[in-house]
């Protein structure tokens, strides 16, 4: 590849932008905190549940499906990571590289079909 290696210096501007963004975010929050009115009442500080009495705490277990999605995401996303280097270089690798990646994707797909068949992604 003809492109040069990135030097750490190339990331410096990103750092600058990060500083600006943080500065903006933090300052707005501080400013609103300072200039906004502060009249606290019990009702105002309670959780909003459309006017109904709050029962318990919101921090309790929720549907397992979301965990399943999260777990699947972790797996699939990491597998995708493997494809990035290949995708960038795949022309140099030619058909052999293609077939190897197809095997890899085939396995991924097998897993994927398994997940679907197991109805792990069915929301009902």
């Amino acid at each position, binding site marked *: 590849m003809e492109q040069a290696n990135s030097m750490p210096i190339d990331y410096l501007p990103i750092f600058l932008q990060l500083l600006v963004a943080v500065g903006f975010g933090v300052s707005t929050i501080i400013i609103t905190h300072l200039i906004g009115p502060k009249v606290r009442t019990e009702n105002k500080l309670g959780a909003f549940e459309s006017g109904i009495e709050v029962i318990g705490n919101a921090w309790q277990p929720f549907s397992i499906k979301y965990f399943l999605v999260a777990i699947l995401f972790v797996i699939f996303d990491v597998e995708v990571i493997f494809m990035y280097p290949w995708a960038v270089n795949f022309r140099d690798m030619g058909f052999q590289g293609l077939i190897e990646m197809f095997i890899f994707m085939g*396995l991924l797909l*097998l897993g994927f079909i*398994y997940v679907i*068949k*197991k109805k792990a992604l069915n929301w009902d």
Partner: protein
Amino acid sequence: MGAIITLSILALVVLYLGLFKVKSMLLPVSILGFLVAIGFLWFDWNSTSGPLYSGMVHFDHYAIVFSILCIAVTLCIFVVSKGYFDQEGQVAEYYSLLIFSLTGAVLVNSYHNFSMLFLGIEIMSVALYILVGIRKRDKASNEAALKYFIMGAFSTGFLLFGIALLYGATGSFDLSEVKEYVVNNPQAISPLFYGGILFLIVGLTFKVGAVPFHFWTPDVYDGAPILITSYMSTVVKVASFAGLLRLFSYSLLPLQDFWTPVFLVIAILTLFVGNISALMQSSFKRMLAYSSVSHAGYMLFAIIAVGATSANSIFAYGLAYSLATIVAFTGLILVKKTTGSEHFEAFNGLGKRNPMLAFAMTVAMLSLAGIPLTAGFIGKFMMFSSVMENYHIVLLVLAVVNAAIAVYYYLKVVVAMYFRDSEESCVNVQWNYSIVLFLAVVLTIIIGVYPDYLLKLI
């Protein structure tokens, strides 16, 4: 290499068989697959040219022998497992995960590159994390899975740090190149390298369950379903040791003076802690768990006294231990079916309730204890003689004391079976159990009487 591919494909096929609800095919297909894999290994025997796939794996005789052992043991476990997991409703997953884990084990046996060691160990363990917890409602199983997971991942961290340090020192993950580095710079070995070895030792001893990194073993072995325990204490243990020995006998051999003392201490501690804890157990399963710790201690002897015969000795020991363990766990399953208990008392009167099973258990216990004319004796003999080769006489004396302690708790089973009475009914043994028991017992005795061929394998 054919074996690894076969096993991987087999795992997928089994998974999909389960998906398409052809449960009756699961066992035949798996067994067929195993046989094919063994066949591949068999035909590789004379064509061991060198590392394959840019030095990733190397199927030398050592790897082939251990791989066949692992596959064969798994085969036995499969045969026994017929009907064992039916109530779980996820038989295919169970089979498939076991095969995946086995693939990892084969990889650990044959690696020639640290990345393959790492991958192998991880494939082996990640599948097991699930298998240990396969009984979703059983709290013990859950807890075991969690403990195994945390300890496994933790030890992986150490293993990886060690590998990273070795890489930092040598610039390569290849075993040959690491060896070259050690051989070429005998004077100027980087401190990183030594640090790396220590971390590797920590990581790998975690995996083999040697003291002081053993504390997960009893809980996990106890909590897991019996068959999984038997898999863990046979295939996983043997494969881990094969991997350990491969690394230390091939790449790190020239630095023997550095790591031998470490293993020496570990081995002694392992023996004593394992044995003395096993002595105090009232649960047979837990006793086997601790005894497996102590067996790890004996197997470490081969690494302490690494030499021309250590591969053979660790193989003989692993084989004997695996056979006996399978019998022991199979017996436990059968007994648990009628009595519902995993304690020694469950075996009471087995000599009358089922004499053949009692005989098989007796042979297994004697083999574990290392009594002559059983395979276990040959294993212990090989270990002792290899240690003697390097004149670690003190170690040997300690080992002997431990062997005597071990006899006590192994005989506890025999005592229960023959000398105590029980009102429990007869124990029925289905044909699949009988086959495995018969084979294992016969092999144990044959190896015990005539191990010649076995000891010349590698």
